[in-house]
């Protein structure tokens, strides 16, 4: 049995750093949406940091990841630097996608992030493809794909799980179950339990009941990754978690679809506080060390916002690049 808590201290602290990066980055992004610096739609992972970071930290360099519309956490979890991510959200030339992706479409190939997807479910088979190339080329990498409980009702997931299972591909399907798809409670539109869908497709399914515990998530995903790397095929991991904020920033829904009690219960289980307390309790780090990390990441986020805001807009010509790899005669400029 894998126990994440026995990892070297610097890796444990890196977990906390990444969770903090997600939290503070998303809080900052939310403010920047309100102030009009960030256009478009923004979905935060606030509250779900353990689920994201526990999974990403269980991977190795060279592994691949695809994400979804709740989309900043995953590249941050993979270790992407914050500046180009925030610049992307603002739409600047220094953005990780040159300002062409935005919040919904972050990608950072340097850290194995192959792309978030605004279309839910659409990026699932992309990760399966990354695992197929690993298998065909005999490379030892694995791939992971993140999707929500709502997305778990899209057919492409089951086609992907089946294909991966039949080929024994090194891929992990990670369901971020935060109990809601937008305003829709999962149980009202979902037959059965998501984790139970694994066995019918010939793969193990595990459910991390306490998805606010970064170590629990790490352990489950690490086991799935090891299995995949051994050539034993894919796994489904369902992580129970909760988003602390509204579906997307600025969205107002007139129906009270999540009650106050439930919200209070879950916000009392803050993954960042839980992990901080655990590390201190186990004697792995001191409160001072943890405070220092808080300050470090606060500064990182401050810097990334400054970087983003001070960066130049993309040159207009960039709008016409990257459609194809070769020259493209745009017939239709009047």
């Amino acid at each position, binding site marked *: 049995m894998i126990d994440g808590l026995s990892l070297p201290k610097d890796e444990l602290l890196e977990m906390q750093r990444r969770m903090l990066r997600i939290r503070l980055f998303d809080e900052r992004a939310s403010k920047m949406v309100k102030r009009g610096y960030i256009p478009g739609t923004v979905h935060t992972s606030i509250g779900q940091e353990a689920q994201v970071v526990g999974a990403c930290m269980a991977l190795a360099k060279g592994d691949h990841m695809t994400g979804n519309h709740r989309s900043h956490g995953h590249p941050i979890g993979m270790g992407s630097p914050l500046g180009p991510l925030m610049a992307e959200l603002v*739409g600047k030339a220094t953005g990780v996608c040159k300002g062409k992706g935005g919040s919904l479409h972050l990608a950072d190939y340097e850290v194995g992030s192959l792309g978030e997807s605004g279309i839910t479910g659409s990026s699932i088979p992309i990760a399966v493809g990354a695992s197929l190339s690993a298998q065909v080329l005999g490379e030892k990498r694995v791939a992971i794909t993140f999707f929500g409980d709502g997305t778990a009702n899209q057919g492409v997931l089951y086609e992907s799980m089946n294909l991966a299972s039949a080929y024994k591909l090194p891929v992990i399907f990670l369901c971020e179950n935060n109990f809601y798809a937008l305003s829709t409670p999962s149980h009202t539109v979902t037959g059965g339990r998501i984790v139970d869908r694994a066995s019918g497709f010939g793969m193990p399914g595990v459910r991390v009941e306490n998805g606010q515990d970064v170590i629990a998530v790490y352990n489950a995903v690490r086991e799935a990754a090891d299995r995949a790397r051994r050539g034993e095929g894919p796994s489904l991991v369902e992580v129970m978690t909760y988003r602390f904020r509204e579906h997307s920033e600025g969205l107002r829904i007139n129906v009270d679809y999540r009650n106050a009690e439930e919200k209070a219960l879950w916000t009392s289980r803050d993954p960042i506080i839980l992990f901080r307390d655990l590390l201190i309790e186990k004697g792995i780090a001191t409160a001072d060390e943890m405070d220092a990390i808080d300050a470090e990441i606060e500064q990182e986020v401050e810097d990334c916002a400054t970087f983003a805001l001070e960066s130049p807009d993309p040159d207009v010509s960039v709008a016409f690049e990257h459609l194809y790899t070769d020259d493209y005669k745009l017939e239709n400029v009047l």
Partner: protein
Amino acid sequence: MSVMTYIGAIGAAQQEAMSADERVIIIGEDVEANVYGTTGGGKQRAEKGDFVEQFGQNRIRNTPISEEAIVGTAIGAAMTGLRPIVDLSYSSFLYMAMDQFVNQAAKNRYMFGGQSSIPVVFRSAMFYGLNTGAHHSDRPYPMFMNVPGLKIMAPATASDAKGLLRSAIDSDDPVLTFEAVPLWGQKEEVPDEEYHIPFGVARTHREGSDITIVGISGSLPLALQAADEMEARGVSCEVIDPRTLVPMDTDTIVRSVLKTGRLVIAEPAHRTCGAAAEIAAIVADKAQHALVAPIKRVCALDMQVPFSPVLEREIYPTKERIVAAIEAVCADQLNQVNRRAS
């Protein structure tokens, strides 16, 4: 008459149709909580206007995120007694259900020799120009125009939205709506009584003699602004909105070009194989002899949609681009005016 917004008109048409016919139901993601603004009126569930309150959960149904199954289920339900309205929210999500649109909705009646009729409306809105990036900004109606068996509406005003949607719901054939989110807030006078606007009848927004401008969906207001500007510069513009793309009232467009001899078409979809291409091709067949200038299309460029606002605005038709197109084909008129002015 009362003043209504474009999105309000859509909600109103749904409400009237739901009240008029028990077989009309609405299914879609998050329709119960009225997330997209067309299945409820008030600020709270209990307030008047909320569809769940009015029509109950048997007829207003949240769905899982399963576009293919939702669309197919609605088709099957329409074949067996219901008249479903499927709220697919973003037009960008239609791809998920492409097989159901093409192989079931469009083909079943034909293949089965008329045994089935399929009274179903698939509503979706084109959320473009809103800096949400390439995945959420598509205007894919031209693909569906290439599929015989579907009807397609793309209203550009509140009154058209209401009257056409009512006709769509009352039609016994599958209809796709492509609503324009940039127009959601646009207001127009709308008749108080219930009304239907027939499919296949264009609306001539202004008459003119020098050039015909066809404006589709969100490009219609731009076409009208461009016409205003050119009118001031001495070019008399006729502005036509086909309103429904299948069937399309090509007669009105052809008749207009026979009069003006010039044609500019503006639409928010990609240029290649778009609705503008179809209109240009029809005119180049039916009115070629009357043409005195090239036919110009002002469409979204054949690029995907970039996120950054400074980039995204390069992609779509603008009033300026429409003006430039008119200038390019109305050199004569403009010279005359210039001569007269100087």
